[in-house]
């Protein structure tokens, strides 16, 4: 017992007191900023591995960006990644970063369905479904619940059964082999339910977008309540994204 107390004292306080303002290292690639510098836009568009960059005007689509940083390494005067980790939104248009835009990525409370606002305001129980992911978003989801980030303190938890869940959170690009299981889990979740895409693979397919081994048809049938960009999303991005639903 004494030994354990010593261990605890040596470890000190490790939880992050305020997940909304906590800083991460400068090198972390979060929200990008596109300057007005004049560069060969065609080159920039072509170098992006997931076609996340469009020209006229130049923009980066965070639904496709895998945050490899290549655009910023090659055109540092044009693209910079800030360490702002709050990348989540319920409005896909807000995830397209345009030239000159420096403000934060906004969540749009006005488009949240009324029943969601009413029912989920104080806690959130989600069922995660991994559908062809590379286990990195899953890794960060697990980290979100650890003693550092402690998502549980906000009443956000992941549950074992979809029947006990307020919604489904998907990771991975939705492999054909997993498509049916995902749909079954979604149907088993009681209404009203949230549907969340976590990580670039889930949102757009990411680097796997063109693979014939995927089956993303299910997404045509459901409304997405939250997009959490990132490859994988940082735990602070996940938590802040989810906190938008609860007070």
């Amino acid at each position, binding site marked *: 017992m004494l030994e354990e107390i010593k*261990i605890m004292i040596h470890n000190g306080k490790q939880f992050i007191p305020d997940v909304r303002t906590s800083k991460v290292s400068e090198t972390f690639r979060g929200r990008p900023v596109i300057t007005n510098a004049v560069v060969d836009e065609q080159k920039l568009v072509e170098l992006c591995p997931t076609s996340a960059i469009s020209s006229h005007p130049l923009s980066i689509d965070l639904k496709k960006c895998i945050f490899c940083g290549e655009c910023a390494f090659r055109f540092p005067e044009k693209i910079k990644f800030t360490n702002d980790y709050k990348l989540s939104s319920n409005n896909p248009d807000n995830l397209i970063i345009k030239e000159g835009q420096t403000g934060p990525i906004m969540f749009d409370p006005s488009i949240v369905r009324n029943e969601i606002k009413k029912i989920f305001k104080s806690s959130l129980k989600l069922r*995660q479904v991994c559908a062809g992911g590379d286990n990195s978003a*899953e890794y960060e989801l697990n980290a979100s619940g650890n003693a550092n980030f402690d998502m549980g303190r906000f009443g956000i938890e992941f549950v074992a059964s979809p029947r006990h869940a307020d919604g489904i959170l998907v990771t991975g690009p939705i492999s*054909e*082999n997993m498509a049916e299981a995902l749909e079954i889990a979604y149907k088993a979740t009681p209404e009203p339910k949230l549907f969340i895409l976590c990580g670039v693979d889930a949102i757009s397919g*990411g680097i796997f977008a*063109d693979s*014939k081994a995927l089956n993303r048809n299910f997404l045509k049938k459901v409304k997405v309540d939250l997009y959490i960009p990132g490859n994988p999303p940082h735990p602070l991005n996940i938590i802040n994204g989810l906190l938008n639903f609860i007070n």
Partner: protein
Amino acid sequence: MNNLCKIKNNNSISLNSIPVYKYSDFFSKVVDLMGDDNKHIVNYFAIPDKNIFRFIALIADDSNSDIIILSHILEENDKKELAALTPKINALHIFEREIFENYGINFIGHPWLKPVRFPKNRYNKELQINDYPFYKINSSELHEVGVGPIHAGIIEPGHFRFICNGEDVLHLEIQLGWQHRGIEKLMLEKKQLLQRTILSESIAGDTSVGHSLAFAQVMETLAQIEVSEQLKIERSLALELERIAIHVGDISALCTDVAYNLGANIFGILRTGIINFTQSWCGNRLGKSMIRVGGINLPFTEKLKISLLDTIAKFEFQFLELAHHTYRLPSVENRFDNIGTVSENQIRKIGAVGMAARMANVKRDIRQSHPFAGFFKYPIEPVVLPKGDVFSRFLLRRKEIKSSIAWIKNMFEKENFDTPSEKPKTSISLMPQMFAVSLTEGWRGEICHCAVTDQNGEICFYKIKDPSMHNWKALELSLRNLEISDFPINNKSYNLSYCGFDL
């Protein structure tokens, strides 16, 4: 046996100079070679080439760092069947299954010729993932328990089918494939070097460094790029950080399963320190964007070295203190000791690699046997434990963390990072008609990437092997005659990859 075709790790050979044997000769050569305890099977696959199939088997000789290449060909008019090697060399079971699933080549006498991962371009498209033919025992005394593909918790999908006598597990069969997203095919379809690099980082996100390093080395081999000694060392450093982080996370997860909360929490916190350092180096906690072909975007610096030494000093003190306490707790020892034991003999038979081999007295570690990157200049001695139970897997992680830390500290005493390593290449040209192989030792074990180029120097075949390809069988064997409630600790004690297996 002296006229065998051999290459070293991270080398290439012209495809046409690989000797092609008659199948019966190939068969007996493989059987002969595999009779030696120093040798293990690395990979066995078929390359479709117009109307023929060229089979390649890679056997590692751990005593002299050779990789032996054996080949045979199935011609257009040959019957699509071969005598299975599996009954003689069990370790080939999964590779013959894979070839059967991909191309419909029948291995006669294979006891278990079942689907592997239901890939999109499988031979028998009629067969769906829900039709997997599970082993059955007809008895009214027994019952079956099926779990998955979706499990409780944030974890990848897979199906576990137990045949139980009461609480006791007689047999466990693991069906995978749900994570299949067609990576090997995308490796050919995506033409940009960066796209391919990113694919390699996404084979198994918890092993981004291990896999992307194998990819980079294959490309550098085919493009004849010799990277600087300093870059090689930086890559090994990244690999050891990945090992430390995942190992300490797994120790935390095992503590969770025995309800030892202090261990679960603090080992988890300790992992955060390491992955946050990785983030401060390359911008990503999992080391994505760290490894690039021919160079590195964010080279290691003296400043980072000071910061890492500080991180490691804190980590080491707390890790040792907590481990010293945790590993002696009767509640931990009792739960892990003599549970889920696999014997050395079983491990050799199934051809397990990496941690799954070393915990059962089988010394297989590519860092030592077939060195790569910084492990030539700074060798590492593998940790080997004799028993093969859950406790051994728990203990191996602790010892490997210590050994990786010692490796880093020793290397830091001699290296300085004043001049930054070279920048990555944005495009490369590859030698035509070559076969290249790269092995790395990720935290789970041996990773193997192979590539073949056509006459224009385009990649026409790419093969990826995660260590889980060999090692899932070890988990199945561990469960024999245990109670079904022992499954979670066994599963976590291996922590095998679904996505790395499913590709």
